[in-house]
């Protein structure tokens, strides 16, 4: 499951905000410092996460730390998913 979440988030960001050009982008790329996330792309990203992974994100989930990179986003989504989902696939 973690791999799927990670890959989906990565693909979404590369497709939506990097015109499909994934060169130089990895799970630790800082989304703020690299000009990828602003207030509008953040809204779109939250919409994508909620719809794709069927999770409900509270305002407290959304902060500079959870939005830092693909790793932190993946961990946030996994934390929201039911434990059974997390354990079944990998």
């Amino acid at each position, binding site marked *: 499951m973690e791999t799927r979440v990670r890959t989906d988030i990565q693909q979404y960001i590369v497709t939506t*905000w*990097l*015109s*499909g*050009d*994934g*060169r*130089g*982008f990895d799970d630790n*790329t800082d989304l703020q*410092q*690299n*000009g*990828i996330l*602003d*207030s*509008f*792309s953040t809204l779109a990203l939250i919409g994508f996460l909620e719809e794709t992974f069927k999770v409900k994100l509270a305002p407290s989930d959304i902060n500079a730390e959870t939005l830092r990179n693909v790793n932190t986003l993946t961990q946030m989504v996994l934390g929201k998913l039911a434990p059974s989902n997390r354990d079944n696939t990998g």
Partner: protein
Amino acid sequence: MRLDQLVSPWAKSSPHQVAVDGNEVFTYAELDQLANCFANLILASGLQLGDRVGIHLPRSGRAIAAMLGTVRAGGIYVPLDPGSPPARMQLIVRDCGLRHVVIAPHLLNSWIAASVCEPVEHYFLSEGTNSPELPQPCRVHLWFEVVESSPNLPGSPGESPDDLAYILYTSGSTGVPKGVMISHRNALVFVNWAAEQISLGQTDRVASVAPFHFDLSVFDIWASLSRGATIVIVDEVTVISGSRMLDRIHEKSINVWYSVPSALVLMLENGALAERGAASLRVVFFAGEVFPIKYLRRTMTAISNARFLNLFGPTETNVCLAYEVKSPPPVDATAVPIGTASCDDVISILDAEGHAVADGEVGELFVDGPTVMLGYWDAGRRTLAKHPYATGDLVSRRDDGQLMYHGRRDHMVKVHGYRVELGEVETTLNGHPGIQEALAFAIDQQLVAVAVPAGPSLSVLDVKRYCATRLPKYMIPSDIRLVERLPRTSSGKADRVRARTALVESDVSTLKPIRPAQL
């Protein structure tokens, strides 16, 4: 003084001096005679004072002779873009009411095929001996057959320097071309100013790079002819290649150059200008678009003997500001100034309420003075220019009095409620060392940029990271496309309109995406 009076004195004093060096070479005496011949021919074809004459020829001595002959006959010349599609040509021919057109045989054939004829009555073929079949009542004249028979002009019918000399069609913001009306006085004020700035004289060899329907060519043609200098044609095939342009400079010892910065960048990127240099050049004028600092620095280093002057002004005012770049600007400079008023023009910078702005604040550039056009030609009606003329350009005045350019007023856009000046986004993108050139647009509330990388290593992430350190977040293009090249206008500038249309319509042939192998 009028444009039609410039050549005869040189034809008398220096008849063998070369006036135009192109595929054909014309001395001043030959140019003078050819112009008179053409003037007689159009007068005999019923040209009335103030009639417009279309010039539809490749850049050549014959085209220049036709312009000179037109003004000698009391006409107004209208240079037509040989690269323009027939539909646009038809708009101009009708708008201008062209009854007389000088045309190259191959262009006439394409006009006939596209039915671009009405209201033309007389075609003057620049070469060839066979007359194509044309619908009545059109007549075709073989201009060069009569050269020998009519060397003298029966006196100039036009008298006033305030008569119209030429009309330049420029793209209107609505997409319909607008005819900018320029008088003899308008043109000569600029021509004399520019010639004096560089002490232009008979030993000079001035490049003709800009298309004749583009106002940069006014300097090339008329400043050269006014001072007995030689015009060296850098033809339409040569200007698409940086290396061929540089070959031409070397072969012909061109020493005065005036072009858009893109042409110089092309010589750097694709002509090895840095290695080969251009030692013959003593003056480089540039205008028409912002010269990215990194390229200006490289160009000035490569052509270290030349003076560099940044000329500024819309077609409507010709050149109204000028700045001499004395040494390569520092690497962290964002732009060179556009300078101070030239040609006795009076400059003001006004806010939206019409009040002068303080130094350092951005306002719209207003120009009054002798270079401001008479007005727009609009289907035979003359719409006089308002004075002072509002350029739509945003500028500020530095403490030292030099003006800085901040883009077009009409490229000010709003994205998610934020005011964004696209020129500022573009300046930032163009400052990236890995970007050759870039344009920015607001499309559906999104900032979209297209960029031509200077090399294969540039990634979209590189560009975003670069912007993130220089622009507020709302000004970072959310969508950045790396493309092989930008579409260009016939004058060589990046074509904003076609690039935007290609983005909206996902037209990948106009904006061919670069697909990195690793994707």
